[in-house]
Structures are given as structure tokens and as C-alpha cells.
């Protein structure tokens, strides 16, 4: 982490700017951006309703249905264009909630220390004992596949890892002289956290947001693939892969299109996050060549 001083907001933008200017960062952002664009304006462009029966089941691509039909003869193109925005929105909200909750826990744990720290970090260990997908499945099994529940489950399963990373970074900053000085001056802890500790964590948090967004997409699309997301007849990329894989030979587009879009999004966000992490460590400035020590630090941060 860079040496900390107050008022580091411009620094966060500088890191983002540096990341975008690297080939890696630009590629990642462009790829993820394209998928977001498809998902966002797709519903407007879709030639048919996503639930309308347009052609034969698993019909080959033709003039009426450019990418053929799905398992019930609905238009694959329309369902692809319509099936992304909810997935992306869920991933974004889950990421925001998870990172916010995790960062809060991590900073409070680091700054308070002692008993509060122990309680928070032991709770973190308990949630970490569940694989993310399994934790979400556990909650879904109780209350059913509700959208808010899935978002909440994914957010809760993100929080522990974010809390660990944030706590480590915040511990580092809490030990600095400028924080000590303010404590001696009698400035209340809450204000020190908000005005001085948090701004110094922006680089760390940006990397976390990127990572968690990728993982959110993996888990939410995975749940959707398992049938615990948006319920039929709604269109959703994960669900489409599951519905249409029986007809893989007759019309592969029904599986390929959603799979490609999900893959492109996660590759894009992950590549961009990698670029941000390198930029925040000051590696991206020199060249695109990966620095082994930075890579070690990155692996530590990402795992």
C-alpha cells in the first residue's frame, strides 16, 4: 500500500486512469463494457418478446430467428438480448452490499482491536467455512429462489473476504503516525475512520470491488444455471444454458451465446481488476511486464 496522507481521493482516480492506459486495463474495460452495453440496450433491440413462440424447438438459425430457436421454440437472439440486465444488476448490487459490509467490518475490527476484533474475525471464519455457492444454496433452500435473497446471500458470502483484506490494510494505516496524532488530539474514532482511514483504503477497495464483481457474476450465473435464479419463463443467461443444453447438437447458439457473454464479462472485469491492482502497486507505470513480487502481493490479495 502506498504511504498514507490525508485527502487521497485524486490518487484513486489516478490509479484508475493509469490502469485504463495499460493495454491490459483498456482491453478488460472494453470487453466488460461491451457486455454491459449488450445487456443494457439489448431488451430494446430484441426483435421478439423473450417469451413469444417464434419457431420450432431448437430450430436452426434462419431469416426469422437469426440465432435459431430455444428449447420451446422461442427466439434465441431475443432471449440473449433480454437475459443479461437482471444478472448484471444483481451482481452489481451484491458486490456493492458485500464490499460495503465487509469493508465496514474490516475497518472497525482493525481500528477497535481487542474484543470487537476477535468477535468480528471469528464470525468471518464461520462464514468462510462455507463455499460461496453452498452458502447461497443453503439460504435458497429455506426461503426459495427469491431475487433479493440471492443478492443478499452473495453479498454476505463476499463480506468475510473483503473484511480480511480491509482489516489487514486498515491495521497498517491505523498504526501510522498521523492517525496516532489525531487520537492524541482527541478526535473521535468514528471521524478518524471516515475522514482518514477509509480514504487511504480506496485502492485496496477498488481491487476488491473488481474481484467481487467477477465472483458475484460467477456465483449468480451459477445459481441461475442450477435453476435457482430468475424462474422460467423469464430469460436469464445462466438459465438459458441449462434449458438449451439438451439441444446442443441441433442449435448450439442457445447455449453458446449466453456462455460467451458471461465468459466475456468475467474475463473483462478480471483483466481490468488485474490492471487496477498492478497500477495501485505502481507496477503499471513502468511497463506491462509483470513484476514477480507484485504478483505475489496480488495473489495474496486475490485469494
Amino acid at each position, binding site marked *: 500500500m502506498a504511504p498514507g496522507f490525508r485527502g487521497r481521493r485524486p490518487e484513486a482516480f489516478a490509479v484508475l486512469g493509469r490502469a485504463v492506459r495499460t493495454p491490459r486495463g483498456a482491453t478488460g474495460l472494453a470487453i466488460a463494457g461491451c457486455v454491459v452495453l449488450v445487456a443494457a440496450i439489448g431488451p430494446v433491440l430484441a426483435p421478439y418478446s423473450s417469451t413469444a413462440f417464434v419457431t420450432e424447438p431448437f430450430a436452426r438459425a434462419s431469416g426469422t430467428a437469426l440465432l435459431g430457436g430455444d428449447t420451446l421454440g422461442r427466439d434465441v437472439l431475443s432471449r440473449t438480448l433480454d437475459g443479461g440486465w437482471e444478472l448484471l444488476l444483481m451482481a452489481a448490487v451484491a458486490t456493492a452490499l458485500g464490499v460495503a459490509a465487509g469493508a465496514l467490518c474490516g475497518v472497525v475490527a482493525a481500528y477497535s482491536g481487542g474484543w470487537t*476484533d476477535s468477535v468480528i*474475525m*471469528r464470525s468471518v*471464519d*464461520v462464514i*468462510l*467455512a*462455507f*463455499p*460461496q*455457492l*453452498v452458502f447461497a*444454496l*443453503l*439460504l*435458497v*433452500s*429455506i*426461503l426459495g429462489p427469491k431475487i433479493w435473497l440471492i443478492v443478499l446471500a452473495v453479498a454476505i458470502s463476499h463480506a468475510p473476504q473483503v473484511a*480480511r483484506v480491509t*482489516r*489487514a490494510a486498515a491495521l497498517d494505516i491505523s498504526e501510522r503516525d498521523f492517525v496516532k496524532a489525531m487520537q492524541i488530539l482527541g478526535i473521535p474514532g468514528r471521524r478518524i475512520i471516515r475522514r482518514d482511514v477509509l480514504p487511504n483504503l480506496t485502492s485496496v477497495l477498488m481491487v476488491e470491488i473488481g474481484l467481487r464483481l*467477477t465472483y458475484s*457474476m*460467477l456465483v449468480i*450465473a*451459477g445459481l441461475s*444455471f*442450477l*435453476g*435457482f435464479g430468475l424462474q422460467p419463463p423469464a430469460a436469464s443467461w*445462466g438459465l438459458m*444454458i441449462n434449458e438449451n*443444453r439438451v439441444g*446442443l*447438437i441441433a442449435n*448450439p447458439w442457445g*447455449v*453458446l451465446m449466453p*456462455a460467451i457473454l*458471461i*465468459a466475456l464479462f*468475467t*474475463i473483462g*472485469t*478480471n*483483466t481490468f481488476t*488485474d490492471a487496477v491492482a498492478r497500477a495501485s502497486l505502481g507496477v503499471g507505470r513502468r511497463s506491462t*511486464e*509483470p513484476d*514477480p*513480487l507484485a*504478483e*505475489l502481493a496480488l*495473489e*495474496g490479495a486475490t*485469494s
Partner: protein
Amino acid sequence: MTTATEAPERVGPPSKAARPHPIRDTLIRRSGIGILTLILVSILVFAATQILPGNAANAVLLNTATPARLHALEAQLHLNRPAVEQYWTWLIGIFHGNFGTSLANGASVGSLVGGRILNSAVLVVLAGVIGTVLGVGLGVLAAARRDSLLDHVLSVGALAITALPEFVVAVILVIFFAAVVWHLFPAVSVFAPGSAPWSNPAELVLPVATLVIVIVPYVFRMMRASMIDSLESDYVQMAQLKGVPRWRILFLHALPNAIAPTIQVIGLTFLYLAGGVVVVEYMFNYPGLGQALVAAVSDRDIPQIQCIVLVLAAFYVAVNILTDVISLAVSPRRRLPRS
């Protein structure tokens, strides 16, 4: 990573033991924390599936809930007794090997799940071992030929594959090797529930390959980074100056020191596999724990869900302890007592 974050906070009073034994101490301390974590997990799993939803019996029966059936099921699940007593009965049952009976088909959960543990274990161990060997091998190769075309291709490829969901990898493999391009391997497993998973190796190929492809990039990236780090160290340069052959430097000087940080990542990949098998088993219809979990969640088969989640959590905790102990055992510097 676990030790790295845990070690400093555990200052405590200095040990009174005459000779500190870091490996034994770590094992005892981590096992203690592990058991505590598992107890808390069991409380959470119990609370989540029994107390939160208003009433589990309602959730199970859904619209077929008549007062009489509801009452019978409540009695069967002991829902009419206080929560603490319910938890106690459940926990004691687990220690006696009794995980309850499945709500979906009335069979004993222990025997339903027991047979599947082996199937999933075969998948996890095969994928874990192959993935580790491949990841370490490619990492060493890339580090030895740093900045070559091969290194760049591998690094960029690893970055891209790291982010792929399992079902996307699985779909791509099915398209290429099972359904559309070639027809080499079956796209779904069809072996009978009782038969051993290795009795038909062709059915294991695609599920294992999917998991391997997903985990190799993690191991590779870590191995490459720590290998480059150790190739740049003084003792490797010293060995080069002495004229030690290249292969000896790579495998006898650099590799042993580079493997320690990678062990944490290998542990993490095994942890990942505990969740990864869910999607892969479902995709290939492989009769393991993950597939059973998905089916149980669909059926709201609470005793089975509790059992499978506990098994997965126990695996998680055990791998964590094992990872810490192994990484301690392979890094001589950390084995020495602190201070």
C-alpha cells in the same frame, strides 16, 4: 494466507513448555479453532434451516399442508420442542452417525450421503492432484523461460481462464469432446449408484477436465511468481556462478523454496473444489455430494441439506488446517520458534 493473518493477533502469554514445537502447536491450536468453527457452523446450519423460516414443515409441504400432515411432520422433525433441545437432539444424533431421514424418500440421510462422499472425493482428489501437478509444472516452465513467447501466452491464458465459470468451461468441453465436434467422451455420467466411479474412467474425463482447467491458472500464477522470485535470489546466482547445471538449479535450488507460498494456493484450490463440484456434478449428472445438494435444495429436503453442508464445511476446515501444517513443514525458516 490464513496463518499470515492469524499469526500476529495470537500473541498471548509466552508458552511455558520447555521446547516449543511449532508444528505440533499449530496443529493443536488450529484444530481447536477448527472444532469451534465447526460447532458454530452447525449452529448456523441448524438455525437457518429450522428456526428462521417460521416453520420448516410448512416449507416442506408447501400447498399440500393440511393441519394433520403439518402436525405429523412437525413431530417427525421435533419442531414442537424448544429450539435448543432440537439442536441438542440433532447434534447428539450426528455423533451417533444418525443424520436423520430424508424428507424426499424416507431413506437414512447418512447412507444416502455416505455413498456419494466417495464419488465426490474421487473427483476432487483427481482434479486437485492433476491440477496441482500441471499448475506447478507450467509455472516452473514459464518462470524458467521468463518473457519468452511461451511465458506470455501462458500468462495471458491463465488470466483469462481464471475468470471463467465452471459451467462455461464444461459447456465448451461438451461441445468439443462430447456433442458437436468430436464424440470422444460421454456428456453425462450414467453409472449405477452402487458402482465405483473408477469402473468407467471415460465418464470421469470431462468432469475432472473441467475442474482441472478452472484450478490450473491459480496454481500456475502463484508458482510462476514465486519461482521467478526465487530464481532471482542470491543463492541461485551463487549456484549459477559455481556452474551448477540449469536443471539442478531449477529443481533442487529454486523449486523447494518456491513451493511454500504455492502450498497456500493449492490449499485454496482444494477449498474451491468443495464448491466447484456442485456445478460440475450437476452439469455432468455425476452422482456426488454436489448433485445431491442441488436435488435436496429443489426438494427442500432439510436433513439432507444440513448433512451435506456440514460435510463440505468439515472438509473446508480440515483442508485449512492441513494447508497450514504442510506449509509450516516445508518452510524451514518458519519452523523455528519465534522471538
